[in-house]
């Protein structure tokens, strides 16, 4: 386990460093894919960094407002660079909102751009899972498996690694998508892959968001997301061959007209 990373004289906490690395790597990959498809890759960088800034400010403000009694007599502390005073959920929500508003106001928000961003998002999520493995967060339940790791006074499932591998598999699928795939397909592939990963590995996590009856909330949500994505993807796939069946099946094969030239279909 590596709770801190030594950089010169400074020992920096691993988790926020990995989150920043994941953010940068995900954005880099998204920009590359977008540029390859002739989309506004630069806009993704701008949106990402605006979202990062907006998220940090919003997350700090949310934390301060939630603990106003502590901050009202020390207003200067609001501007402290101490990273501990941050509401993570609000930071993510506000950051995403800022990025989406930026893209929307420039008329760049499109399904095609979202599709292009999905490999980057899969990479970022995989790196975050690996970061959890390094920092000891999101750890697994005790296990006797030969590949179990020593963590927090027990041998445990390396559930962070299972998740990372699942997301890398999703990334591989997204990377191999052909360029003529239907718009939105990449989004649903990521939803399917990540939903499956949460559904499959959540019972091996030591800490879960529990619903009444002991049901694991993220596991249920993962299944619902995966089933929805599977429905959408299979429906789209089922619709595709119908476009090719444009000839009368009663006409014998020998005199069946040749299919139209490929360029006519585009």
């Amino acid at each position: 386990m590596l709770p801190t990373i030594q950089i010169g004289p400074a020992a920096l906490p691993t988790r926020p460093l990995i989150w920043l690395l994941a953010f940068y790597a995900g954005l880099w990959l998204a920009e590359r894919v977008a540029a390859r498809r002739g989309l506004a890759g630069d806009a993704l960088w701008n949106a990402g960094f605006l979202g990062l800034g907006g998220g940090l400010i919003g997350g700090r403000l949310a934390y301060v407002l939630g603990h106003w009694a502590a901050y009202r007599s020390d207003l200067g502390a609001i501007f402290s660079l101490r990273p501990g005073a941050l509401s993570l959920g609000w930071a993510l929500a506000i950051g995403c909102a800022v990025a989406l508003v930026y893209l929307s106001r420039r008329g760049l928000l499109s399904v095609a751009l979202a599709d292009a961003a999905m490999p980057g998002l899969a990479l970022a999520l995989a790196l975050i899972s690996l970061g959890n493995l390094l920092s000891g967060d999101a750890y697994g339940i005790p296990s006797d498996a030969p590949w179990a790791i020593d963590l927090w006074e027990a041998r445990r499932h390396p559930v962070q690694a299972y998740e990372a591998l699942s997301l890398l598999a999703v990334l591989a699928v997204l990377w191999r998508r052909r360029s003529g795939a239907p718009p939105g397909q990449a989004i649903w592939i990521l939803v399917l892959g990540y939903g499956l990963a949460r559904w499959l590995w959540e019972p091996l996590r030591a800490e879960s968001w529990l619903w009444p009856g002991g049901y694991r909330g993220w596991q249920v949500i993962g299944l619902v997301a995966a089933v929805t994505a599977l429905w959408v993807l299979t429906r789209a796939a089922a619709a595709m061959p119908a476009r090719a069946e444009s000839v009368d099946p009663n006409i014998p094969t020998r005199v069946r007209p040749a299919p139209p030239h490929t360029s006519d279909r585009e």
Partner: protein
Amino acid sequence: MRSNWRRIALIGGFVILGLIWIQLGRAPADSASAPLSVSPRIGFLAPDFTLDRSDGETVTLSDLQGQAVILNFWATWCAPCRAEMPALERVYQARRDNGLVILGVNQMEPKERVERFLAEVEVTFPIALDLDAEVGRIYRVHAMPTTYFIDRQGVIRDVVIGGPLNEALLQSKIGALLGE
């Protein structure tokens, strides 16, 4: 039409498989009341220890159960550690009557050096001397300052690596410890 039914059958089969795994993956009924393990990790019981204090007394962490504890690992050569001492002292003075204890755990420094430092800085919260850094090792201290926030039941509620901590941040973490 046939492909529609195949699709529905595929998805239906997956839903059934999914529900079976969800059922098998339910948390045990007694998981919420299961005894916590001891580990230097949020949500776990704080590892117990006994150390000599700078004033000649000894301190045992488990003796402080029933009070909220801020465990602050520090050293005199650590600039952020020195910088946050006044904030720790102000918070200690403000909340000690509410059941807060701040325990500074000095890492691997001779008693005389610590005493010289305390004569300059004037903190009144207890300072423990971890001369061989054994407690620091148990608590996986890799950087200083590292601060553990422990509630009245002895459970670690937060860990902050680095500093200096300001008074507002300390106050924002203390409320949860004291059950406010």
